[in-house]
């Protein structure tokens, strides 16, 4: 069912990582991304991967689920790898292979591998966040983290509400799409044959009713929200409060250790790029 796919990323188990505060997880992910970008040698990557492996173990998420996230950007990884491999140039380099504008050198092999590793570790880290945090918790976390921006009149609350309404309507609109597809099939619509252009064209009779109904829903939702006293954030209170826990402090220790490790390795183990 389409309905179940919508929230398919989240892997519901009880674990150390699942119980962490979403704000801590978002902040640590940002720290981890910074880490990936300051790494200067492969030893540093080993530290990043160790941190990643530790998180996966503590999150009790099957490793296959985490690795699956690479599939989505596999194409990008391969293309960037090839571009870097053939086109990257460094001064005073050992040339392995050269043809027309393409050259493979020792430097380009290292560089291409490095960049591919960077992309892979980036995606793996981010996927752990979405696997262990519900979309609702993520929205709450983001709202809380962005709340200082209220001082410069940035509509943080509205943004969070938009995100949570969007999440709320994913299953509803999925269901609706299925219904429209069935209705159009019953009228003899064909979605499976023809070339790519006629298939894309066949989507129009699905998209138009879907968009019209989405607008109608938005209209009704607006009325319902107003009827429930929604006026913006003027006097609004919040029911759910996020709380940092011991888990977040322990995790902070590991993130800090990884940071220290990478910086030390950068200084003492030399740079490959």
């Amino acid at each position, binding site marked *: 069912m389409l309905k179940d796919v919508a929230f398919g990323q989240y892997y519901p188990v009880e674990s150390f990582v699942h119980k962490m505060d979403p704000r801590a997880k978002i902040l640590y992910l940002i720290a981890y991304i910074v880490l990936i970008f300051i790494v200067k040698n492969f030893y540093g990557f080993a530290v990043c991967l160790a941190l990643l492996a530790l998180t996966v173990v503590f999150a009790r998420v099957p490793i296959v689920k985490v690795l699956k996230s690479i599939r989505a950007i596999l194409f990008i990884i391969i293309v960037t790898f090839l571009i870097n491999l053939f086109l990257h140039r460094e001064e005073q380099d050992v040339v392995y292979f050269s043809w027309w504008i393409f050259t493979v050198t020792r430097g380009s092999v290292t560089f291409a591998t490095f960049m591919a590793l960077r992309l892979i570790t980036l995606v793996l880290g981010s996927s752990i966040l979405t696997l262990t945090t519900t979309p*609702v918790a993520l929205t709450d976390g983001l709202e809380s983290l962005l709340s200082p921006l209220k001082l410069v009149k940035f509509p943080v609350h509205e943004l969070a509400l938009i995100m949570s309404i969007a999440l709320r309507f994913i299953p509803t609109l999925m269901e609706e799409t299925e219904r429209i597809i069935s209705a159009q099939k019953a009228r003899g619509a064909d979605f499976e044959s023809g070339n790519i252009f006629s298939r894309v064209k066949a989507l129009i009779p699905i998209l138009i009713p879907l968009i019209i109904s989405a607008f109608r829903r938005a209209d009704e939702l607006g009325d319902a929200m*107003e*009827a*429930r*006293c929604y006026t913006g954030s003027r006097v609004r*209170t919040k029911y*759910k409060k996020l709380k940092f826990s011991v888990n977040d402090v322990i995790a902070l220790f590991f993130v800090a250790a990884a940071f220290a490790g990478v910086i030390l390795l950068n200084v003492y183990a030399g740079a490959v790029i």
Partner: protein
Amino acid sequence: MFAVKLENVTFKYEGAKRVAVENVSLTINEGEFVAVIGANASGKSTLAKLINGLIAPLSGKVEVFGADTSDSSKLFEIRKSCGIVFQNPDNQMVASIVEDDVAFGPENIGVEREEIGRRIDFALKASGTEAFRSQMASRLSGGQKQRVAIAGVLAIKPKILILDESTSMLDPRGRREVMDVVRSLNKEKMTVIVITHYMDEVVDCDRAIVLKSGNVLFNGTPKQLFQSDEVIKKAGLELPVPTKIALKLKENGVDVGLPLTKEELEERLWTLLQKN
């Protein structure tokens, strides 16, 4: 003081050819259970929006506990005292999780955190949805979703509850679930206005108001309504099945009076049989 008072109210939607509600005057008392019925485009949903202040009358006056809905400074108070449950349960939920959705109303009116918790408990209990508290709203059935929507309105602690065709998208079981909740709320002194086109939802009401093309065609007890063939025919309504059976029996010389429910009909037939 009346809970709701309409005085010569007329309303026309922008771009519409004819008025949706025309010169309507009526009052609803506190604690009353009123059904507003009518065919499609009779203006009954417009009435709900007028009472809640979602739309302001073109002419005339709408008052909720004495507060004029045209006065925008009073709208917040009016909406606090008068909640609406709409037709489509999917289109009135803001959050994915039941508990978060019920919290939306109290959050809007600035209730303290602990009090919101208490209100969620109360609202879920009153609508019989405690079991779904931490579930995804999208996984519930239509009747369950609609009861969650009622909980979302109850958490604001309104004095008036309006159901704007809230049962029209539900199966018979879902309809019964919702109506049972509404009836028990009315017993707890809640003013209830049920807007519907099902005659059997009118049966238990204190009063029935029939609308036709934006005009009040009838305003009286359900019993009186069911006796006036003319009104029913004119408004394009249909009698509940037990009443229909009784009328057919009467035509054939068996007088069982005018029962409105299945139980009533059973009772009368039973006494009639015992007499003979």
